[in-house]
C-alpha cells in the first residue's frame, strides 16, 4: 500500500490523527493533502474518505464546493490575478483577458504544455496595490497590462 511508503500520505495521516479522525477533520485534511500533493487526486480523496469513514460522494462534494481546492495538477508556473472589487475597477479584468489571449489559456486552466496555470482570485486583500497579481508566489501590485505579459513571459522562459 502506497500509504505506508509515501511520505506525503504520512503528512495527511498526521493531520487526521491530530484531529482525532473526527468527521469534522475533513476540510483540514484536504488542506494538508493539497499542500503535500499539490492537488487533490481522486485516489487521495478516497484514501481520506476511508480513513475518516466518510462517504466518497460527500468527500467529493466538499472538495468541489470550496474553490481553494484544486482537483487537477497545477502548471509549472502559476499566475493569480486578483479580481477583487478594487482590482476590478482598476482594470484587472483587462489584465486577465490579455493574459488569457496571449498565453491561450482560460482562467482556471493550465496551458497545453503545462507551463502556466492562470487563476483568478476573489480578493487577495492587497487592495491598496490594485491591480495586483501573484506570479509564482510573488505579488506585484499596481500592474500594467503589458507589464503583466512581460512578467509572465520572463517567468515561463
Amino acid at each position, binding site marked *: 500500500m502506497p500509504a505506508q511508503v509515501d511520505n506525503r500520505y504520512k503528512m495527511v495521516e498526521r493531520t487526521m490523527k491530530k484531529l482525532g479522525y473526527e468527521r469534522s477533520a475533513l476540510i483540514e485534511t484536504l*488542506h494538508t493533502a493539497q499542500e503535500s500533493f499539490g492537488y487533490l487526486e481522486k485516489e487521495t480523496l478516497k484514501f481520506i474518505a476511508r480513513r475518516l469513514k466518510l462517504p466518497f460522494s460527500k468527500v467529493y462534494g466538499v472538495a468541489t464546493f470550496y474553490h481553494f481546492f484544486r482537483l487537477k495538477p497545477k502548471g509549472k508556473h502559476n499566475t493569480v490575478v486578483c479580481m477583487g472589487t478594487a482590482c476590478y475597477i482598476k482594470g484587472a479584468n483587462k489584465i486577465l483577458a490579455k493574459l488569457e489571449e496571449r498565453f491561450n489559456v482560460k482562467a482556471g486552466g493550465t496551458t497545453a504544455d503545462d507551463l502556466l496555470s492562470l487563476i483568478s482570485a476573489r480578493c487577495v486583500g492587497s*487592495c491598496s496595490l490594485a491591480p495586483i497579481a501573484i506570479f509564482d508566489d510573488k505579488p506585484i*501590485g499596481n500592474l500594467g497590462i503589458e507589464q503583466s505579459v512581460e512578467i509572465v513571459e520572463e517567468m515561463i522562459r
Partner: protein
Amino acid sequence: MIHTLEELEEIAEAKREKDSETKEELRVCIGSSCLSLGADQIEKDLKEEISCRGLKDKCKVKGVGCNGLCSAGVLVSHIDREKNSETMYGNLGTSDIKSVAEAYESGTILKEKLLDPHDPFFLNQEKIVLENAGYIDPNDIEDYIAHDGYFALFNAIIELSAEEVIAEVKKSGLRGRGGGGYPVGLKWETVAKVDSEQKYIVCNGDEGDPGAFMDRAIMEADPHRVIEGMALAGFACGANKGYVYVRAEYPIAVEKLNKAIKQAKRLGILGQNIAGSNFSFDLEVRLGGGAFVCGEATALVTSIEGNRGNPRQKPPHLSDYGLWGEPTILNNVESFANIAPIIRKGGAWYAGFGTEKSPGTKVFALSGHVKNTGLVEVPMGMSLRDIIYKVGGGVPEGKKLKVVQTGGPSGGCIPEHLLDIPVDYDSLKSVGSMMGSGGMIVTDDSQSIVEVARFFVEFCASESCGKCVPCRVGTTELTNILDKFVAKTATKEDLILLQDLCTVVKETSLCGLGQAAPNPVITTLKYFEDEYLEAIKND
C-alpha cells in the same frame, strides 16, 4: 504559567524595561500590502545595516503589523523614546534602505521619503481596534502584554462576574462588525442564559468580501487581541471552546494566530483553570476554503463541522442551535477585537465614541479611485465625504467621484450627492446599502455603473451555494440580463424582468447572500437609471 494579575504585571514590566534599554526603534510595516512590496527583505536589510553600523544596542529594528497607509508602502517609522518623537518614511524600496540607515546614523532626515504626521489621514482617525497595529510585534505575546494585553481577561476572571462582563459589553453598545450590526452584548446574553453543558465561541475570520482586508490586518498585526476577546466571550457565556475560522488565502494570519495561541497556552492564558479560576478555554484555528457564503453564520458553522458550506433556514438561530447543535456565539474578528478595550476601560467609555445608535469606531478598507488607500479607523457617524476626502485624500487625477460601494458585493452603491450621510448602520441602510464588514470602494466617473453592478452580481452568482432556487438560478439570470445591458442590446422588457428578478431573489432567497445579492442592481437602478436606459437598443 501565570495565575495572577501581579504575575501578568511582572511580564509587562519586564518587557517594558527590556524595551527601554534600546532608546530607539525602527519599525518596518510587514502588513500584507507592504509585504507584497518587499517589506520582509527591507526588514532583513535594515537589521543588517543597523548591526553593521554597530547601532544594535541603541536601536531595535522590528517588524510590525499594518500601519494603515498601504498606498505609501513600504513604511518605516523611527521612534525615539527619549524625545518621544516619531518620524515616518514611506514609499520605500529595498534600494532606499542604505539611505534610511545613513540618515538614522547621522541624525538627519530623509526628506524625500518623509511622510507628514500631520497629514489629515492620521489626524482624523481614532484607533481602538488598531491601537496596537503598527506598534507591537505580533509574534511576541510579551509585547502585547506590555501594551495592556490580557489584563481585561485576567481582571474579568478574577474580579468580575460573567454578568458584569456582559453588562459592560451591553453598555458599550457595540454592534456586530461583520455586517448585520446585531448588538454583541445582547447576543452574548442570550447564549449565557441558555442552560447547556457545551457552548462554543466562534470567530469569523473568513472575510470573503472582495475589497475588505480589515480582519486580515487585525489578525496579522494583533492576533492576541482577537484571542483575548474570544476568551472573554467564553468567560461571559460559559463556553470553554472556541474556533477561529480563517480564510485559507490568509496564510500569514493563520500563522500569526497559531503562534499566538501556542504562546498563550504556554503562559496558561488559554487552557485549563485560567488565572487560577475554574474557567477553562481552548482555541483552535480552522481553515476556510474560499467560499464567500461561509461568511453566513449557519454556513460557517456547518463548514467547521466539515461539510459543504450550505446555509440552513433560520430559525433556529445559532444561540439555540449552533456548532454541533450546541448554543454558539459567532462574531467576526473586529467585533472580538473591540472587547478587550471595552472591558479594560468600560462600556461607557466606548459608548462615548461614535453615535448613539452606532457607538464606537469602525475600521474601513479604503480602496479604488482614492488617493490614500489602506486601513482607516474612524468614529462611527463621520460622513462618507470626510472619510473619502479628509482621510482618504479624495479622488486622484482630478476626476470626479461617481459612487462609493460599501457593504461588499451585496452592499449598495452610494452616489456622490449622498456623500454627506453619516456612516453608521442605519444611515447606510436607509440609502439602500449596508455597513457590511467595512470594505469601502471609491469609483470615479470613468466607470460604467452597469458594469459595476454586473461585476457584483456575477460575484454572488459564482459564490451562491446552490441550495435554494431563487439564489442559484436568479443570480445567474441576473448576470445574463446584465450582460445584455453591458453589451447595450437590452430591451424594455429586460428592464422589467431585471426589476422583477431583483424583487424575487431578495424576498425569497434562503440566506443573506441571496437576499442581498440584488442590492447593487437595486441601488444603481435607483440612482443611475439613465445608464440602464441608455443600454436599451431601439428597434
